[in-house]
């Protein structure tokens, strides 16, 4: 297909497409004719036409939504509104071009590896004057406490990424090297997944190199880097948590690689090694794939107030009992000043200058270079050598005279902390807009990972383009759009390294294998909040139904039943004063505002939106534990909640619409839990959370409604609503046909083992869930004992005796019994917290000023 003889220009596309002036265009040459490796794609997109391409773009966005792909820009809560932007048109690289990038990236990785090894070892490069010591000693990434830490094997630089641009002559130029914890490979994989579904035939026929082998190489590399003598290394992915901007990717990596995703508080340093806190026991950890910046990794030896790290981690790495990759301190290589010295270092270390060159860079620590930079400030990009908040690049040509003066003074004051870089007329590439194809500046992030004495490069990478035609800034913070990157195979690719392997069966991972306690805790709360949200929704709907019937009606029983339900709503959700306390009469007369608040108020515990937000936070925190389809549901729930505030509809319509949409999502979530999750440890906790919450909600509702009598007409309406809210009305009507009776209602809601809404059913599931957990000594744990007690009490109860009324019409015995069950269940829930989850004390600094103690795991208290 790359035969030039059969290539014909695609006039419809080429005609509409205008490359940017003064730069190289990826798709067309100077004459506007598609380049050889682009011709097939150019033709195909011309055939598809603009409308169809736009339709595919919508489809791509929908798929990304479905997978919950987000790029957070740090905020207090993870949200689905930070969309990952993906252009349906891939960036295309021919095999010759790719070879230049691939060999260049490997060569650079090898060179940087030798530099890294030297800087945290003999420092010969400094002693011999090949690298000025100020450049290293003055860089924030040079971590003295990590000096001398060595990974097993020859490669100290485990993974590497290069941002590669193309200058006006089409030469590839590295704009920056990424060595701290290179991000983007997971997004590249996601882009591929989406584009291969959006442009399936195009993708199939274009013979594109696959990405999966790269992730297998990554897995092999992680196993290879384990401390010597460890045959079956335990590997984890360390993340700063769900609020991190690339949290999505951390979860993708963890699930793609099949390793637990952990936060600092999931790990503990002991006896010279590192361990994962896994449900009441410690599991050894041998390799940590680090996505936390090194400086934050250990409050003992690095950043003292970091809450993202593990105290003692540096010492463990030093002892060689755990391999942390990239190695702590690797970001010393991200110093842009190093770019000015790479040719010299290449000659010294590899005998050749790197063929993949860098953007022309002058380090101001050198007198001659500083003079050049200061004399040409308005033509250069000025960059601090260390990356820090607020240390963005300054574009000399955008500065006023006063700004340039200030900049000059800053550079003269600490010259070794600055570089000047020449702007590159970056290449453009076609990007889909609603008006057709538009040329946008483009940059490729290429990824490499260590492989026996060299590196392997992902065939492809993460291409990003500027957010608009005029812009030459390409970063995710600036709203860049990403592209799938297609490296065309010169011959059909041999499929090797299948996932499906012949040969002896590999020992699988035990479904009851350890997961971090924090993950189990989040799943337990995910279950609880999901069920709580569902219970509130059902109750609100039942209330809303009665309101439609009886609000302002003259039917006394109807009005009384509505009133009883409103009071029950406040009691069950514990949203006092509500319809009970001070000002209740006014609110009972006009309940609209209070009901709206109970739906939309995220900050109000007990409100539906609060439970849903808490559920979402739990889901984002255990992203790696949940199936892909879950994100379809989570994303739509998130959007329902986000839209609640911007709605200008009439309040009751908002409430009804929200209740319906939330209910749909919650039902879908429940279905996924039942049908798409393996019954592993995590599922057990999620299910248990759901069950205990369902029982608690139902018992609370019964206490708030049926323990007192209000007259037959009112009571029958109340009982009917209770049965509706408990999702048992249909069964009840079918079974008992006649008028509602408390005794039969209790039979169905408390005692019927066949009713998946009954309390006894929840108790049985809870007992099963906790029995399924690994148990060392076969003695009952606290939560098991309490659940057994509750279950026994319930089985022995006589409902006929319970419904007896006293003179005031109250069923005191029933109330006492329900209260007793509720107490046992709440104590069981506390026992679960205590027995299974880690209760971390707040972290403090031992010496120094009094620090306000933050919660150790950063999560707010839950009720």
């Amino acid at each position, binding site marked *: 297909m790359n035969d030039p003889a059969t290539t014909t220009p695609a006039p419809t596309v080429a005609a509409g497409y205008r490359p940017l002036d003064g730069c190289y265009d990826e798709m067309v040459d100077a004459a506007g004719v598609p380049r050889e490796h682009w011709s097939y794609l150019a033709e195909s997109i011309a055939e598809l036409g603009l409308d169809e391409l736009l339709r595919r773009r919508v489809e791509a966005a929908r798929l990304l939504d479905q997978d919950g792909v987000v790029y957070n820009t740090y905020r207090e809560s993870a949200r689905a509104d930070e969309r990952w932007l993906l252009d349906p048109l891939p960036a295309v690289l021919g095999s010759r071009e790719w070879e230049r990038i691939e060999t260049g990236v490997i060569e650079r990785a090898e060179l940087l590896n030798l530099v890294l090894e030297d800087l945290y070892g003999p*420092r010969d490069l*400094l*002693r011999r*004057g090949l690298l*000025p*010591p*100020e450049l290293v*000693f*003055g860089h924030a990434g040079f971590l*003295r*406490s990590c*000096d001398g830490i060595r990974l097993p094997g020859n490669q100290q630089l485990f993974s590497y990424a290069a941002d590669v641009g193309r200058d006006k002559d089409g030469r590839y130029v590295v704009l920056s090297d990424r060595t701290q914890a290179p991000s983007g490979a997971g997004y590249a994989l996601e882009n591929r997944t989406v584009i291969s579904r959006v442009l399936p035939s195009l993708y199939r026929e274009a013979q594109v190199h696959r990405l999966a082998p790269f992730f297998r190489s990554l897995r092999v590399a992680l196993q290879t880097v384990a401390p010597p003598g460890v045959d079956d290394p335990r590997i984890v992915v360390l993340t700063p948590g769900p609020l991190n901007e690339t949290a999505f990717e951390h979860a993708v990596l963890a699930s793609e690689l099949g390793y637990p995703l952990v936060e600092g508080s999931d790990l*503990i*340093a*002991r*006896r*010279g090694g590192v361990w994962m806190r896994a449900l009441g026991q410690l599991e050894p950890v041998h390799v940590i794939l680090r996505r936390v910046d090194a400086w934050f990794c250990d*409050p*003992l*030896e690095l950043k*003292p107030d970091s809450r993202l790290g593990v*105290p*003692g981690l540096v*010492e463990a790495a*030093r*002892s060689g009992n755990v391999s942390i990759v990239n190695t702590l301190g690797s970001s010393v290589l991200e110093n842009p000043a190093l770019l000015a010295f790479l040719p010299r270092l290449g000659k010294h270390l590899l005998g050749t200058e790197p063929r993949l060159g860098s953007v022309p860079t002058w380090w101001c620590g050198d007198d001659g270079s500083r003079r050049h930079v200061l004399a040409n400030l308005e033509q250069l990009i000025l960059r601090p050598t260390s990356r820090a908040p607020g240390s963005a690049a300054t574009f000399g040509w955008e500065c006023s005279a006063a700004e340039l003066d200030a900049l000059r003074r800053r550079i003269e004051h*600490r010259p*070794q902390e600055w570089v000047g870089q020449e702007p590159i007329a970056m290449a453009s590439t076609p990007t889909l807009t609603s008006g057709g194809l538009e040329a946008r500046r483009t940059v490729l992030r290429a990824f490499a990972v260590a492989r026996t004495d060299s590196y392997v490069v992902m065939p492809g990478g993460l291409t990003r383009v500027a957010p608009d035609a005029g812009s030459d800034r390409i970063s995710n913070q600036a709203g860049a759009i990403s592209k799938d990157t297609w490296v065309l195979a010169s011959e059909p690719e041999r499929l090797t390294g299948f996932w499906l392997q012949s040969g002896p069966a590999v020992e699988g991972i035990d479904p009851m294998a350890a997961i971090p306690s924090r993950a189990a805790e989040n799943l337990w709360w995910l279950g609880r909040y999901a069920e709580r949200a569902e219970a509130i929704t059902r109750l609100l709907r039942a209330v809303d139904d009665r309101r439609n019937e009886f609000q302002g009606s003259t039917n006394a029983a109807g009005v009384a039943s509505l009133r009883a339900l409103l009071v029950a709503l406040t009691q069950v959700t514990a949203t006092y004063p509500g319809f009970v306390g001070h000002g209740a009469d006014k609110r009972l007369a006009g309940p609209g505002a209070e009901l709206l608040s109970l739906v939309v108020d995220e900050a109000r515990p007990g409100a539906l939106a609060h439970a849903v937000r808490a559920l979402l936070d739990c889901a984002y925190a255990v992203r790696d534990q949940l199936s892909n389809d879950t994100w379809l549901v989570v994303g739509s729930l998130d959007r329902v909640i986000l839209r609640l505030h911007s709605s200008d509809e009439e309040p009751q319509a908002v409430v009804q619409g929200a209740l319906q949409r939330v209910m749909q999502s919650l039902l879908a979530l429940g279905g996924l839990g039942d049908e798409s999750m393996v019954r592993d440890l995590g599922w057990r906790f999620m299910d248990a959370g759901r069950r205990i919450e369902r029982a608690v909600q139902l018992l609370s509702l019964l206490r708030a409604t049926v323990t007192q009598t209000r007259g037959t007409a009112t009571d029958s309406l109340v009982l009917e609503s209770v049965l509706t809210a408990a999702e048992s009305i249909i069964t009840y009507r079918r079974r008992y046909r006649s008028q509602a009776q408390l005794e039969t209602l209790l039979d169905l809601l408390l005692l019927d083992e066949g009713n998946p809404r009954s309390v006894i059913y929840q108790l049985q599931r809870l007992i099963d869930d906790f029995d399924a957990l690994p148990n060392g000594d076969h003695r009952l744990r606290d939560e098991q004992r309490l659940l057994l007690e509750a279950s026994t009490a319930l089985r022995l109860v006589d409902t006929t005796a319970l419904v007896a009324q006293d003179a005031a019409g109250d069923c005191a015995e029933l109330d006492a019994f329900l209260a007793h069950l509720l107490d046992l269940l709440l104590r069981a829930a506390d026992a679960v917290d205590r027995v299974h989850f880690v209760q*971390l*004390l*707040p*972290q*403090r*600094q*031992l*010496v*120094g*000023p*009094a620090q306000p103690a933050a919660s*150790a795991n950063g999560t707010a208290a839950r009720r």
Partner: protein
Amino acid sequence: MTTYTVTHRTEYVYESAVAPSYSQLHLLPRDLPGQRCRSAEVVVDPEPEDYRERSDFFGNRVAYVAIHEPHVRLTVTSTSVVDVDGRDQGVTLLAQRPWEEARDALADPHAAERLDAAQFVLDSPLVAATEAYADYALHCFTPGRELLAGVIALCSQIHADFAYVPGSTSVSTPLTEVFETREGVCQDFAHVGIACLRSIGLPARYVSGYIATDPPPGKPKLIGADFSHAWLSLLVPGAGWLDVDPTNDQLVSHRHVVTAFGRDYSDVPPLTGVIFTEGKTKSLKVTVDVAATPISA
């Protein structure tokens, strides 16, 4: 030569149970030209689960301590026996050259001390050079003045201008504030001296250690009356490091015992740590005793 036995005891009492507790100690004296550590030992109570000694980036001795048993009291006691010679006359001799010449010799890319010169002239976490420090230093480092005379004058100037006020500063007090209020403790004066030297291009480092004090005439020496101490050290081209003590306005003598050195205090705090606890630290007590042993080996 004098032999000192140094005992340094730190006791923390906490409001509520602590577990785990991780700490890092710079309490074991290192060997240096003019100083030899005969023995040094740290005792931690409660018994740590992990205890390891190593050398840090600067060659100082560091101990890593991890305690997992819940505790409300932590004591760390180090006992070391150190031989201290008098000052190396060679260094003072070679410091008798114009300070600008010394500065330029160290900036030469081919200088033997190039790495140290670069490392200790750059800003460090607690000490950042500014014009103000340079101006202050230039009162002492007048053009052509000898390096030795300049640094002695700087010590005297700091000693004269700054009031020694225990408790006036904490570890987190910025140096600029010390420089403004003109009060602090030995650690602050060492930092001021370092900032002044670096601001005029002279590499300087922070030294953490002890000083033996004399009892008032006719009184017996009180155990624990001594303090942990800090001063600074200046790089002299071709000679090595020259230690000066601005707190006591003197060149460092055979009465000073060095524990560790670094770019500033943050590289070598005697004890730092991370603890997990609900409560606060109720009390912190430090006692230091530096006893000269009458015998000389």
